[in-house]
């Protein structure tokens, strides 16, 4: 999944002579997105396929997509992070409160917006670090550890204002802390800043996963932790970092959302973690770890977002939308299991004493047929 494609080597080795079903299965999230777009364009030709609507929908998707990318990193490692929705909320609160000034030794400091953003992101990193240490060092099951932090972090967010919403985020030119809404309201070349943030995070995540040592370690440890450990992969460190990345992504999503709403509410992001997991799964990642891509996850997030927006536009009730979303998730998991069963079906078993054919090292596709037969 992270290999270069050498000129002589086809990327998918067991070639099935242009199997149309395999192609449909591989690209299913992309196809789903196209189908959704076409169907809603036909149902609502004047409102759905317009540029402004696509931009609005993308802006809505970007928050979920940011969470999903962090979630992907944890899921690739074979874990799960249920705390991202709460982390989003707490980071938003930290940002909102920092805009109101920080009192230290009786003096109220008004940090610049970039400092506010860093504070909020650091909050997410700390939550992620706690998750990571719980899972990697104290061996708490990821589901339980992050379920715990889901509650604790949400509680902290509510405690910070006793449940009140922080509304005044404009800042004051005299204090030098204006510009927070820029993130949520401005555009570059017609594209909202929130979407740009998503693009940057997605590119960075993609580079991290495909091109860095950490990415390789993440895939390896998620695919087989024991084998990765014996190959010298520092599996615990990788795990801690995965959760930190997820926390940071959630915090970035929190800052973007807070800015878009121009208010920081302690209940922001409630149950978003489930949407994020759904996006990762629809994007083809395996919940058992080791398989999944940023591209797929983005497609997954857009499938969910466009489906919800489209259903709203054609006037389907929110309850029916929920049913639809659920059905899509189940379908996605079903297709995942079909895909991965195909790949693992030919797992060889030990203990057979075959007499081999020739033993010359060959790396050409010509030997492919024989090699496939050689499988035990």
């Amino acid at each position, binding site marked *: *999944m992270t*290999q270069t494609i050498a000129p002589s080597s*086809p990327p998918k080795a067991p070639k099935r002579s242009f199997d149309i079903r395999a192609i449909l299965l591989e690209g299913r999230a992309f196809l789903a997105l196209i189908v959704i777009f076409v169907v809603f364009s036909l149902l609502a030709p004047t409102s759905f396929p317009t540029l402004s609507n696509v931009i609005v929908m993308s802006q809505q998707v970007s928050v979920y997509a940011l969470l999903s990318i962090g979630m992907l990193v944890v899921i690739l490692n074979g874990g799960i992070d249920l705390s991202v929705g709460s982390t989003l909320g707490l980071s938003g609160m930290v940002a909102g409160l920092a805009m109101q000034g920080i009192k230290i030794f009786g003096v109220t400091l008004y940090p610049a917006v970039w400092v506010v953003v860093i504070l909020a992101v650091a909050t997410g990193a700390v939550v992620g670090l706690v998750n990571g240490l719980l899972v990697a060092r104290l061996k708490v099951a990821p589901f339980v550890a992050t379920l715990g932090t889901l509650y604790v972090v949400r509680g902290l967010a509510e405690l910070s204002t006793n449940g009140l919403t922080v509304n005044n985020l404009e800042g004051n030119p005299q204090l030098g802390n204006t510009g927070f809404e820029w993130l949520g309201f401005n555009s570059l070349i017609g594209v909202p800043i929130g979407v740009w943030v998503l693009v940057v995070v997605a590119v960075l995540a993609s580079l991290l996963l495909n091109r860095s040592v950490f990415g390789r370690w993440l895939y390896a440890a998620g695919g*087989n932790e024991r084998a990765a450990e014996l190959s010298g992969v520092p599996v615990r460190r990788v795990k801690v970092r995965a959760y930190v990345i997820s926390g940071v992504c959630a915090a970035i999503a929190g800052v973007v959302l807070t800015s878009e709403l121009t208010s920081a509410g302690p209940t922001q992001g409630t149950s978003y973690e489930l949407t994020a997991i759904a996006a990762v799964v629809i994007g083809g990642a*395996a919940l058992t770890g080791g398989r999944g891509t940023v591209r797929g996850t983005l497609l997954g997030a857009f499938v969910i977002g466009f489906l919800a927006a489209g259903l709203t536009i054609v006037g389907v009730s929110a309850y029916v939308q929920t049913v639809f979303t659920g059905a899509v998730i189940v379908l996605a998991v079903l297709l995942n299991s079909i895909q991965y069963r195909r790949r693992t079906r030919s797992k060889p078993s030990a203990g*057979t004493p075959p007499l*081999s054919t020739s033993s010359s090292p060959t790396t050409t596709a010509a030997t492919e047929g024989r090699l496939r037969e050689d499988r035990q």
Partner: protein
Amino acid sequence: MTADGRDYEGDDEVVLSARDIVKTYGGTTALKGVNFNVHRGKVTTLFGENGAGKSTLMKILSGVEQPTSGAIELDGATVSFADTNDARDQGISIIHQELSLAPNLSVRDNMFMGRELRTMRGVDYREEERQARLVLRELADNIDPLTPVSDLRLGQQQLVEIARALHANSRILIMDEPTSALSAAEVEVLFKVIADLKARGVSIVYISHHLEEALQVTDFAVVLRDGTMTANALAKDIDLEWIVRHMVGKNFNLGAPPTGYPFGPVALEIDNVRIADPDNPQRNVVDGVSLDVRAGEIVCIYGLMGAGRTELLEAVAGRVALTQGQVRLEGHDLAHLSIQGRIQRGLGLVPEDRQRDGLVQTMTVGGNLSLASVTDFVKGLFLSRTQEQSLIDAGILNVHVKTASSDAPIGSLSGGNQQKVVIGKIVATNPKVILLDEPSRGIDVAAKAEVFNLLADRAREGLAVVYSTSEVGECLSIAHRIVVMRRGRISAEFGPDVAKEDIMAASGEAVVV
């Protein structure tokens, strides 16, 4: 030799017979027409080295796999088993080396697992308990049906498995290495139970590497080699020497240890190492082992299963903590180094279980091959793909991996080629010492020979090799020095010219006859 599978004496009733069983996996043949009979109320033992086809035959007899051709006859009628449940319904049960009990449930619940006695008001636990007690009493052991299985010793757990099979009215019991994890006293009990079972008309198919032990309990001996039956006989007519002769046969020439170069200084020192048994902290699985390996030297650690070889190698590699003792690489104590640190210093392990510990199944051939050395080609923040690809290409050539491409999924390779990838992964880190734990398990003879050549070449270049195996033949064709482990200790040390029988004797496998 009666390779046609005809009866030995004629006065025993044949309950089960295999007729010309052939099993091929893809292009390779695991069984090449095997014939043998199982007699009512007798023990039939299958002898053979690893890879001779014993496990494949077992899988076929117990319904795990279907033969490619040939037939199984039960009481004279041809039968076929759809799966293990089907085989069990027809009276054949298998007791695997790894027991298939749920440790959290009681003995009773395990015995009735999947066959619970259901009534209108749910499960009839009282009746289950009564029946369980009855069967357990017949096995002459004081196991209470309500004890959780996790509280039982391994030998007792095995009896529970036997009880479960008996309760399912099994007439034929297949026992795969039943004694390998048992204490001597537990083996005694098991043999008594086997005698009882025979008296009740239950037939037993027995598989064991402990030849002497097996010979003691068996009535018939069947020897397999390379997927064919090479000999069968009545146990009373044969001796250990006969078994070994037919098992080993003419050696496939795997070559001899590399010679003609001097060894370097000591690369690896294992100094009085003890490792506690994680399941039983009073016992040491490795109990005071000291071993020096010099650069360029190939040392074989021979021993039966459970002798402590795997634990020793895993501890040296850094996965398991030492209870006592020291491991030094080129004079440096490794105590505080992680697995990663040890690999960087030049010490790597090729683990015993390829699927569980060796490969990342979700990754490609190339991804697996470069995994251990991936830090070597970081350029700035990122991996250099060109450097990685050249390492992978070199690796594929070096260890002769047959693959369609380095981007092929690792699962698409044959067992032997997968193993070469695991070895290549460690070799790519340029180690000074390589530890290999049963590297030839489940790979074919040709692949084995290639692995040996690879190790010999590397040893000539100064690599210290520690090779753990349970196949005597391998020791003789690769090792400069053979160290035998038995129950956590080194019981003997030999040069390359030793006789097979001496090695086996030192391991507790067989006495010299």
